[in-house]
């Protein structure tokens, strides 16, 4: 029971901190999960990859984390605690917005928060890269994907699946 409360508290906090989207809390999530819930960096990156393959919001992968830690109940608790607090805040902000409309301060705060969330996203890239780019093969896969996503219109899921399959073949062959 205390494990579930701990999970709920952790993900509710991450939910409220996720300014700029889920990627902004990736490094924090990774650190907390490693220190407090025994999910190591490799597991975390594997689970993150599953989220990338899923349709809908990529951060739904938090369900797998909940499942790993406390089974189906854990997945449910994580789903509620990760999506409810931020959604409630947004809901009330939407209603306030409809009452007050645009003010110069609102625009300022948004402009100010944008670079912070991009900085946090960069930290997210760094955290995931540290755990997933572990050899020359994985480095090449990451760079090729970066290039393909930025320069071509190929569906990202196909790029990821292709490079996952290709990488698996290479690693299996070299082992």
């Amino acid at each position, binding site marked *: 029971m205390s494990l579930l409360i701990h999970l709920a508290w952790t993900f509710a906090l991450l939910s409220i*901190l*996720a*300014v*700029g989207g889920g990627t902004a*809390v990736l*490094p*924090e999530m990774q650190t907390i999960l490693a220190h407090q819930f025994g999910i190591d960096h490799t*597991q975390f990156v*594997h689970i993150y*990859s*599953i*989220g990338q*393959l*899923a*349709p*809908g*919001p*990529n951060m739904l*992968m938090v*369900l*797998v984390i909940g499942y790993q830690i406390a089974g189906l109940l854990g997945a449910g608790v994580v789903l509620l605690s990760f*999506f409810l*607090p931020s*959604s409630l*805040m*947004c*809901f009330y*902000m*939407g*209603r306030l917005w409809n009452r007050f409309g645009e003010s*110069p301060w*609102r625009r*300022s*705060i948004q402009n*100010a928060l*944008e*670079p*912070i969330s*991009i*900085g*946090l*996203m960069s*930290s997210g*890239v*760094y955290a*995931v890269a540290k755990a*997933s*780019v572990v050899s020359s093969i*994985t480095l090449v*896969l990451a760079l090729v*994907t970066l290039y393909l*996503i930025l320069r071509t219109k190929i569906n990202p899921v196909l*790029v*990821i699946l292709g*490079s*996952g399959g290709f*990488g*698996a073949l*290479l*690693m299996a062959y070299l082992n």
Partner: protein
Amino acid sequence: MSSQLPVNTQLAKSPNLGDLFIQFLTIGAISFGGGIIAYERILLVEKRKWLSADEFMAYLAISQTMPGLNSVNMAVLAGDHLRGVLGAVIATLGLILPGSLFVLGIGLIYANAGDHPSINWILGGIAAAATGLLAAITYKIGDTHWRHVKSLAIIICTFVLMSIFKLSLPYVILIMAPISIYLFRPGQSQ
């Protein structure tokens, strides 16, 4: 013919809950590889005309400013706009249901076979590619911020506090938010 127009407009503005659910469920099921906001815009503004382009932009701004995933926040706001509290709940549930079932299915397999070497190779390869994808998305979302000195300085300071000094996230925000809001206060140029 013309007498029916107001009726149609009325219908377009208040979809029934079932339709709202199905539309967001569809987005949740087909929006692979990010870019959900784009799908939501197509549905809300172009396909069903449930929101005007202006309303969509206003809700997008709130979605991005508030914590939480932008696509989920958009579902909350659009759902509330169209059908109140129940609409917000229904739209959000529709959006996250397909992906939730998907990750739970794969997660189940992973939890039971995560030690198998081939699973490790495949997920290892996918993880490396996902890192490339994440870098690309971050670069794209950063857009013009990468070229503005003020924005770039904030980005770098945030990154250094978070990744190099390894401060915890609440502290990073407590330090950076006041500085950044001061720099971007009303009346300042970009």
